[in-house]
């Protein structure tokens, strides 16, 4: 698992998303209300760029014809066929145990020091959003 710097924290405000392109792997990184999430940018259905879809909630029925709008901003809807996935876990709404998209660990960390360069104690001014993939 390698560490990939996505962006400076200050450049990655809530409500925005970033993409990192690794060899044969595209990952979407989301800042949703200040929390970060990373998902594989490929829908398990037909490999659509899932993370280009809408961040939204979903409708949960209590009985036929009755429902509530729930899980606001916890769901991503695939830009092609509309399959819904929970952003935090990658589990699909319609079949959470079998149909899933891979998630990745995201962290907010200070810039990693390069051990080959002699350093002096400094104040950390910039934090970075990083993904482990």
């Amino acid at each position, binding site marked *: 698992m390698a560490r990939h710097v996505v962006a400076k924290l200050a450049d990655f405000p809530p409500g925005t998303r970033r993409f990192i392109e690794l060899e*044969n792997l595209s990952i979407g990184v989301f800042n949703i209300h200040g929390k970060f999430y990373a998902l594989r940018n490929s829908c398990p259905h*037909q*490999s*659509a760029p899932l993370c280009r879809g*809408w961040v939204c909630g979903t409708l949960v029925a209590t009985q036929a014809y009755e429902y509530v709008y729930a899980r606001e901003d916890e769901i991503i809807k695939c*830009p*092609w066929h*509309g399959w819904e996935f929970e952003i935090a876990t990658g589990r699909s709404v319609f079949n959470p145990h079998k149909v899933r998209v891979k998630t990745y660990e995201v962290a907010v960390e200070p810039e990693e020091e390069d051990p080959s360069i002699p350093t002096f104690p400094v104040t950390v001014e910039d934090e970075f959003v990083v993904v482990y993939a």
Partner: protein
Amino acid sequence: MEESYPIIDCDIHQFLPNKEALYPYLSRARQEDMNQYGLRMPGNGGYLNGGDRGYRIDSWPDDGGRPCSTLEMLQTKHLDLYNIEYGLLLGQDLRGIPNMFDADFAADLSAAYNNWMIEHWLEHDDRLKGAAFVPTQNTALAVKEIERVGSHPDIVAVAGINGVQFPYGKRFYDPIFAACEAYELPFVIHTGGEGTFGQPTPVGYPTYYVEIRQARQMGYMAHLASMIFEGLFVRFPKLQVVFVEGGYIWLAPYLWKLDSDWRGLRRHTPWVELPPSEYILQHVKFTSQPIETSEKPRQLSTILEWAHAERTLLFASDYPHWDFDSPINALPHMPEQMMRNVLSDTARELFNLPRRIEVEPVKAAD
């Protein structure tokens, strides 16, 4: 898909950038009416749709334009990406033409649309071919339009729609099919219009969009039975028909049912000398999108074999609609020759297209 093959996409929907794009091809009188009332396409019953307003969320351009409304959009987002050998344009904004109650306006819009498609799309990219819209609600006007554009080298089909006044085997439509046969143009029927001229299902109006999608094959089954038992293919032995976007996996059991019923009821329509399935195999194709999925992949492969997919199935993506099928990820496993036929060989022959791609296309990155 392990291997890669040439791809002919038999269902692409290109948009008008705006209604004024048709004005160079319409009279001043029509323009003034359209300034006030727009295209006047029949309504869709108010059903919701999928994706973003019915289209792939990622097909809407950032500049506020409409999906697939410029040649460049279609080229970069679809044709180039999947190395499409040919794409058949089936229009978008004017697909309700056959459902309009004013046949003269439908005829004028057909001619305007066909001219616009030829001048702005077909003549600018060798990969693009078009289906001519015609006002099928008035066969004389429809034939006139086929005679006007039917010889254009890039017009390779005549477009029809599912929801019409009569099932297509009825003699009402004979002049249109005679013209299709004379110009060697397959009649390509797209879903749509169900409910305009009558109830969209035999049991009335469904409530939800997901239900109305299930009505497509009901219409197609009715048209097919009509075509076969009214002897359409006996009367027009060179006619070819394509059913677009109405599902496919229902075909195999339907072929069996048609043949089973025909054996005992043959004397009602004695001109139907061959088993009904034989007319379908010889005259009818279906497009793949939206391809159904099965519980186990092998089941779908089996049903493709039962439906003679190597003869009856054409690949279609339906770009840029929300239920787009990826040319490289949607189709189930099938034997190599069947896959070649589905992806391009059958369509190339049906539309009489010269082979453009010898090299194997590259697999697009996901």
